């Protein structure tokens, strides 16, 4: 039944009847992290599973609480948030990793000469003021016996990366390469990128992930299963057809910059599944590692029960 | 039918007594004038009758009903015209009757014409002269439905001829409907010409000083202004006021 996918109408039209309406809240504005969802929508994978999916932007609200409170069925989040949220007894569970490995890291324009964490010394870091940032930088610098107290930190609030580094107020910041890094490539701006995964195994956490709440898992596992089946299909399609997947995203959200989406998709598609045997799989040790690291660094008030924070059971067998 | 009884009224502002034990009666259909030095408390007495504030002691009765502190029982021309700047002359004069739900534009226009303000129906107060504003306020109170009228120096800003016109008009209206009128003025002549009775108030605090019953027959014509008797009355009242100061 996959040969007539392309012919399927993307609009939900009259055929909506009989489909189960579910909603998913994004973590930010639509971007290539979400391509699989849009592909599943456009290619009719959701419909095949009997679902009518509405993709919502979270605005300022953020996905976690919305999903936890049941206003939305699913959401996009990240392991860091979920870890902190679960410690605060917020009942959300990760049901699939969108990207296998952490693609975030510290980026600096090449002219700042930051080749390794040791070079952070004497430089200015632009962040949003969370304790976790200092801890991460500290972890990285520790390995090279550098001193975190020699890094100046500025809270750059909502300012965008390029503005801040270009003006010279900051030297490096924490970015996702798949979006901001790719944009830099498009602008012919040379970046030195230090991925977290290159320096600490413990910091190779899942970001982003798909979440739902515990109640949903208890009451309606079938829907979750169908949903994840379609989403997997969507991401697999995006892995195989990056160019077409990018087009689908651009068509769904025409206000995005097409060039950036295409380049970013090209970069990101191979990273979705990466070395895992299946898209979306999560490992307990990743959850334990990161939570343990946070706890050690005083970023968590109690230890995380990693087993309850994620599950692979809804991924297609 | 409207008889006003003023009974032992006392009023002070911030410990300064303004009215001290004022009592008098305005009979039904009577025209009574109040005379008294500037600042003696005449306007204050009107405010008390109208229920704007309550007297410290004493009571007012209109037709036997106690109206102390009750509003809306009298029709009133304030000392300063108090017109609404955003209303045209016509709308301003209909205000009093509007409050009681029976504005009559036709009558209002006729009245304006009589007050010498024909053609100013749609003017705003700021386009009128001082005397014209005062006439507007006067017409407004004439158009109010209450049968007891209190007029606070309604003609002070008018030239003598216009003033005479207005006085004659007031007498004519009063003669027709026999509303009772309580009238404040500083002109002794005006008081004599219009009133059945003149009440003279003293000052600091105001007490009832003396009453004069004016015996001229009704209807009165302006020629009485020149009679010997008129002058006699005028002198007597003037002397009475003079003693006050």
């Amino acid at each position, binding site marked *: 039944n996959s040969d007539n996918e392309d012919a399927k109408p993307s609009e939900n039209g009259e055929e909506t009847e009989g489909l189960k309406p579910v*909603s998913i*809240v994004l973590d*930010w*504005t*639509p*971007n290539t992290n979400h391509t699989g969802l849009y592909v599943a929508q456009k290619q009719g994978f959701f419909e095949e599973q009997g679902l009518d999916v509405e993709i*919502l*932007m*979270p*605005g*300022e*609200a*953020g996905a976690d*609480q*919305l999903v936890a*409170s049941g*206003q939305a069925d699913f959401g996009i989040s990240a392991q860091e948030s979920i870890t902190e949220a679960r410690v605060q007894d917020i009942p959300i569970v990760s049901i699939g990793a969108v990207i296998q490995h952490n693609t975030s890291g510290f980026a600096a324009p090449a002219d700042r000469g930051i080749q390794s964490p040791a070079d952070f010394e004497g430089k200015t870091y632009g962040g949003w003021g969370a304790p976790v940032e200092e801890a991460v930088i500290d972890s990285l610098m520790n390995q090279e016996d550098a001193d975190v107290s020699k890094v100046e930190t500025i809270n750059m609030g909502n300012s*965008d990366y*390029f*503005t801040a580094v*270009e003006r010279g107020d900051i030297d490096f910041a924490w970015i996702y390469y798949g979006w901001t890094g790719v*944009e830099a490539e498009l*602008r012919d701006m040379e970046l030195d990128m230090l991925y977290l995964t290159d320096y600490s195994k413990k910091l190779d956490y899942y970001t982003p992930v798909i979440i739902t709440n515990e109640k949903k898992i208890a009451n309606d596992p079938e829907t979750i299963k169908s949903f994840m089946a379609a989403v997997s299909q969507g991401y697999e399609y995006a892995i195989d057809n990056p160019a077409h997947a990018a087009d689908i995203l651009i068509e769904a*959200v*025409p*206000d*995005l*910059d097409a060039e*950036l*989406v295409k380049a970013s998709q090209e970069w990101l598609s191979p990273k979705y599944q990466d070395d895992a045997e299946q898209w979306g799989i999560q490992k307990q040790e990743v959850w334990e590692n990161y939570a343990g690291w946070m706890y050690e660094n005083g970023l968590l008030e109690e230890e995380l029960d990693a087993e309850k924070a994620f599950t692979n059971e809804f991924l297609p067998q | 039918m409207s008889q006003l009884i003023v009974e032992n009224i006392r009023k002070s502002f911030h410990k300064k007594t303004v009215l001290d034990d004022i009592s008098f009666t305005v009979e039904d259909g009577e025209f009574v004038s109040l005379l008294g030095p500037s600042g003696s408390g005449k306007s204050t007495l*009107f*405010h008390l009758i*109208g*229920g*704007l504030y309550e007297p410290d002691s004493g009571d007012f009765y209109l037709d036997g009903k106690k109206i102390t502190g009750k*509003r*809306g*029982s*009298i*029709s*009133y021309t*304030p000392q*300063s015209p*108090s017109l*609404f*700047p*955003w*209303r045209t002359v016509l709308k301003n004069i209909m*205000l*009093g009757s*509007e*409050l*009681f739900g029976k504005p009559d534009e036709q009558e209002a226009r006729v009245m304006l014409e009589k007050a010498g303000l024909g053609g100013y129906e749609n003017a*705003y107060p*700021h386009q009128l002269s001082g005397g014209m504003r005062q006439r507007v306020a006067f017409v407004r109170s004439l158009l*109010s439905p*209450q049968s007891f009228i209190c007029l606070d120096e309604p003609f002070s800003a008018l030239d003598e001829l216009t003033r005479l016109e207005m006085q004659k008009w007031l007498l004519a209206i009063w003669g027709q409907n026999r509303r009772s009128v309580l009238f404040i003025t500083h002109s002794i002549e005006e008081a004599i010409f219009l009133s059945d009775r003149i009440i003279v108030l003293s000052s600091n605090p105001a007490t009832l000083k003396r009453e004069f019953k004016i015996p001229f027959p009704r209807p009165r014509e302006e020629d009485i202004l020149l009679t010997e008797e008129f002058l006699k009355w005028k002198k007597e009242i003037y002397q009475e006021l003079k003693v006050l100061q």
Partner: protein
Amino acid sequence: MHKVIKAGWRPLLVIILLFIIWELSSTFFEIPSWLLPAPSEIWQEGVAGWPNYHHHIWSTIQLTVIGFSIGCIVGLMVAIALHLMPRVREAFYPLMILSQNIPIIVLAPLLVIWFGFGMMPKIIVITLVCFFPIAVSAVDGFRQTSQELIHYMKMAGASKGQIFLKLELPHALPSLFSGLKISATYSVMGAVISEWLGANRGIGVYMTLASSSFRTDRVFVAIFMIMILCMLFFLVIISLEKLFIKWRPKGEGNSK
């Protein structure tokens, strides 16, 4: 028409001047366009992108009009209630001020959690933004009515309601319009902010998308859209003001 041109040329000149300075300094200092695009680039994008974003504008206009209307009504009602019922004023005036201090960012998730993703939470946000200036100015306007006229009305036997309707309300109109002007100005921003609560359409959405894909030119197109909308709303209020407040002495006695 002539009058409009006569009144409009000065601000237009200033604005055009600003644009010219901006354009020139863009070229002169070689400001990269992703940092601050030149007006000409913004104009191009504005023209070229019109088919992509015009539906966003409609959606925002709708939201603004609905929200502003509700905000005005609420603001006026609140002001009237506070004015006519001194007890209520004492008890609720502080609460009204507090209502202005719940950061929208914090309120947003709560509103979405309580009311879902529909119109409701958005309209609440705009209303919250709009009603306050109206309520404050109206209350102050009511309170400043000339005592002389109030005295007259009371003596004339006007009821509290009549004093309010015939005297205090018309007297407060200029002040009320001050409030309306402030609110109208905020309403468009309020609508844009409310769209950040989660919407699929609207200038707010267009702007976030543009911003997150680093399309600075589109961000500026959005800003100009907001500004133009806002000016339109403001003009509407000013026209209404002219319509309602006719009596103010002008001409001869007025030096302006």
